[in-house]
């Protein structure tokens, strides 16, 4: 469903600030895969998300979604295929517009926008029904401005909007990181529910190791622009934080050793 081939991205190439953000990334997700990505700051996780969604273009390599090469498509042109939730709860919704207007925009994502009314009676019923699945009572506040909602409510709405048209790929970019623990748990549960119900192919970046282990069927660890660990569904079932950390140290250590061997 999602295929990344030989992706390279260097920022500020040729200057003292040169930074290799992504180094020869190969990644393939099958339909329905739910992959969690962990890694320290600067590992290239967000760059990877931005390259898939088209905010950034790779220096080399290709991005394929649903057997279609999307390299030359701009962000808004790829958007019908991709749903995305950002870390900032403010980022995924329009605060000055109402809940139903926001949902109407999500509804039009994979259709051509015209001079039809954005919110019609039939659509309102559909919006209500899907809001009920969030269990937050938002279905009774259709005409409330989204700016009045709490961070957790806004993020739940963002998640619903991102998945409303069942995109080919769902990108979750640390979407629970800015929430307090109880809200984060709520959004985590909703994520699991929505992804399972629609069988969405999902890529989720997180800083929370427990969350990365609990969610999804595959786990990837990134470091310095490379994928250094890829835990398959069988192994992931028995994965714990300790084993993950040990694995990380083992890989890092090995690398260190090989560096020393070269320098030695």
């Amino acid at each position, binding site marked *: 469903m999602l295929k990344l081939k030989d992706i390279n991205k260097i920022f500020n190439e040729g200057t003292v600030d040169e930074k290799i953000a992504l180094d020869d990334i190969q990644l393939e997700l099958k339909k329905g895969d739910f992959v969690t990505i962990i890694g320290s700051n600067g590992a290239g996780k967000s760059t990877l998300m931005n390259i898939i969604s088209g905010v950034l273009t790779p220096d080399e390599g290709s991005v394929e979604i649903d057997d279609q090469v999307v390299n030359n498509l701009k962000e808004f042109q790829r958007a019908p295929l991709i749903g995305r939730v950002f870390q900032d709860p403010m980022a995924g919704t329009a605060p000055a517009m109402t809940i139903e207007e926001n949902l109407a925009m999500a509804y039009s994502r994979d259709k051509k*926008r015209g*001079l039809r009314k954005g*919110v019609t009676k039939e659509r309102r019923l559909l919006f209500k029904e899907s809001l009920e699945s969030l269990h937050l009572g938002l279905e009774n506040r259709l005409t409330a401005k989204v700016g009045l909602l709490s961070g957790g409510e806004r993020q739940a709405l963002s998640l619903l909007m991102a998945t409303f048209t069942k995109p080919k790929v769902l990108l979750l970019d640390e979407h629970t990181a800015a929430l307090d623990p109880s809200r984060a748990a709520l959004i985590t549960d909703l994520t699991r529910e929505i992804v399972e119900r629609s069988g969405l192919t999902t890529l989720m970046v997180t800083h929370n190791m427990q969350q990365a282990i609990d969610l999804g069927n595959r786990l990837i660890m990134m470091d310095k622009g490379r994928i250094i660990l890829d835990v398959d569904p069988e192994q992931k079932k028995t994965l714990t934080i300790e084993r993950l950390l040990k694995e990380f140290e083992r890989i890092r250590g090995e690398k260190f050793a090989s560096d020393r061997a070269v320098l030695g």
Partner: protein
Amino acid sequence: MGTALLGSLESGVIFAIMALGVYLTFRILDFPDLTVDGSFTTGGAVAAVLIVNGYSPFLGTIAAVIAGIIFGALTGILHTKGKINALLSGILSMIALYSINLRIMGKANIGLLGEDTLLTQVQTAGSGFGEWLSKYSIVLFVIVLVILIKLVVDWFLDTEVGLALRATGNNARMIRSFSTNTDNTIILGVALSNGLVALSGALMAQYQGFSDVSMGIGMIIIGLASVIIGEAIFGDRSIRRATLAVIGGAIIYRLVVALALRVGLSPSDMKLMTALIVIIALIAPMMINNWKDKKKKAARRKQSASEMNAHLEGGKNNA
């Protein structure tokens, strides 16, 4: 109704069309578009030239709207495709339009007195139905027109394209991730806005009986004043409410100007007055809020102090 009052109402309603255009860019798109100063004149220039050359005033007015849409789109293209700062792209268009407007008119001023205009036609039609309708025909015509425009704007902003346009001004990153090309929505919004501004200019030229190359100077500030005054007085909870408020703001602004002229200010002071009105309208709400906040806090402090005293005295009595 006094003639002076009627006059301010008529011109206020004509300016309201321009103010609706300014509302579209300034509030909906969050794009402070200064093209307005040029495109208002363009509207007047195109309509005047076509009318004195014997074309129907209706055709002249339509052509003015189209010209406004084209120049508005150019500003939008400068900003989105040329990556020029929003304010600067408006200023560039405004400056360029000064020369273009002179080219269109061929001279700095075109008189329309004695010509058949949209408004003289309305008046002639009205006079067929008695004295009352003759006197009020123009104001009724422009009021009906501005209400129609308001309804169309309200309708448009509720359509799928309209929602995308509003989101572009509210959260561009979000609406891009919902497959909207924000370059296009910005160009569309600025174009429509300047179409309305040019319509207002065309009507104003026909109303005052001449088109002048400097008639648009300061228009953006009048538009802003109308938007800000209107929202402050009538509120802006919903689009419907806000567009109505903008129309009300434009009329009130005109009435205030008429009042200022009556108390002895000269017409040349008007630009200064407009600037002062906008400054006050921008600063006053903030100051009022601060003052209310302070008062509330002081009251709370006083209350807690008296509670404390009561508590202490209660303690003394017990002892």
